[in-house]
């Protein structure tokens, strides 16, 4: 192989923020699972066109359907809800069926109840829990960190129970398994990674907002344990707290204050003032070489809601405290 790896290093360093992240993985896996056929990822710039085509298609399909339904109502037809899983699914299929005799009242038929399922909901959840604990990485999230629901249905003439576990943190993590009511076997389950890799930070979520309300607008100013827990819930644990044998956040802060002083003086730090430094400990998984490092943001003045313009980034190793770089942030 070629010995000159400057180009590789340059691209990796310049584009180190470009990663095939959980969102990408999820998109690929969801594309793979969607209706048993592969779809192409949506190109953002063609969405308008796709929207227009979809809207036209919906209009072509819906308008005659609505007209037909209205006509059916006038004729005294009944609206029937069909589908074995109807009670558990929001996407009910509604069809108009002409009634044998006109009836004045339009009422949905009750969903056919599963007939004497031999498997109770509790049993189904217990089976899925065992499955989850076998196939998923429970060091990330435990079973108790999911909201669990179960819905009965029918598949190929046999009763099934689908158990859905959704993260209580509103981070998109989800695990679904389908259990046979006949013999209690797990017929299939969703991809384990989707259960433990947070897909996004939903800034609209009340849960997420409460973190920022409690700790402030900037993650770096939060206490270390809060940073680590937030990161575990929403960022795949990229930040963590210091372990035995590693320098503490306070020590990292002190080292960074010393290291950044000269650079910050040129950016307006008064001679008698110390830099305001905010350490974040990036876990091994966040670096390309498997070494945990502190990245410390240092400013000439303490951070409020608005960040000061001049910032110096100090990078130091968590195990030794050795300063690896001091650079003005872009």
């Amino acid at each position, binding site marked *: *192989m*070629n010995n*000159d*790896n*400057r*180009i*590789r*290093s*340059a*691209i*990796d*360093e*310049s*584009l*180190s*923020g*470009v*990663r*095939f992240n959980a969102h*990408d*993985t999820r*998109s*690929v*896996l969801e*594309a*793979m699972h969607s209706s048993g056929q*592969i*779809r*192409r*990822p*949506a*190109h*953002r*710039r*063609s969405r308008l066109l796709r929207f227009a085509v979809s809207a036209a298609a919906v209009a072509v399909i819906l308008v005659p359907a609505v007209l037909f339904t209205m006509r059916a109502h006038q004729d005294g037809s009944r609206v029937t809800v069909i589908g074995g899983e109807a009670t558990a699914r929001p996407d009910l299929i509604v069809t108009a069926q002409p009634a044998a005799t006109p009836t004045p009242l339009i009422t949905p038929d009750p969903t056919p109840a599963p007939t004497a399922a031999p498997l109770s909901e509790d049993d189904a959840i217990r089976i899925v829990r065992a499955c989850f604990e076998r196939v998923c990485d429970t060091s990330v999230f435990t079973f108790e960190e999911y909201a669990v629901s179960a819905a009965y249905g029918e598949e190929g003439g046999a009763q099934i129970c689908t158990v859905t576990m959704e993260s209580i943190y509103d981070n998109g993590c989800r695990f679904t398994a389908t259990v046979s009511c006949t013999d209690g076997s797990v017929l299939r389950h969703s*991809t384990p*990674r989707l259960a433990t890799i947070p897909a996004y930070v939903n800034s609209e979520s009340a849960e997420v907002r409460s973190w920022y309300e409690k700790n402030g607008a900037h993650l770096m100013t939060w206490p270390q344990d809060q940073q680590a827990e937030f990161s575990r819930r929403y960022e795949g644990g990229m930040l963590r707290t210091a372990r035995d044998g590693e320098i503490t956040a306070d020590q990292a802060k002190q080292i960074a204050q010393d290291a950044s002083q000269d650079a910050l003086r040129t950016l307006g730090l008064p001679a008698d003032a110390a830099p305001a430094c905010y350490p*974040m400990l*990036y876990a091994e998984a*966040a*670096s390309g070489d498997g070494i945990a*490092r502190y*990245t410390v943001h240092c400013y000439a003045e303490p951070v409020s809601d608005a960040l000061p313009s001049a910032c110096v*980034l100090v*990078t130091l190793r968590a195990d030794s405290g050795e300063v690896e*770089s001091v*650079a003005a*942030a*872009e």
Partner: protein
Amino acid sequence: MVPYTEEEREQMLVFLMNEYGDSVKRMCCVYLRDLSLSEDAAQETFIKAYNHLDQLMSGEIRSEKAWLMRIAINTCKDTLRSSWMRHVDRRQVIDTLPLSCMPRHEENLALTQAVMALPQKLKDITLLYYYQDLNLRTCAQVLNISAPTATRWLQQAQKKLRQYLDAD
């Protein structure tokens, strides 16, 4: 051909995404000079790979990396060939890319920009040879060209990069 279960195929796909995801996405980013397009292209690369996973798993394909990079490059070329892309100004994206926790060095940025600025065929060979660390013969196979042509393209790319960096 041995039929593989969905679970086995999915495990293989997850392995490929873990192993090559970052480098595929970065290569697409250099190739397309657009972050959101590179995201789509990288995802599409793995979706296409999944569709042909049986070839890889049955041993028909000797180098999974070369195979994946061929898919990635073809996906990027398809994107560039789209009629929309022909009318777009894609001069630079590097300043709009997500910042890493590590500071970036100016000379590395300049070198990355120089690679981005190369003509397409020279960029192909540079990315495969230097970034993906494939040997020249494999690069030639991936690009469907002869080994001497690959060598010539590589020399031209080196010359262009030198000129670009000297001028900078």
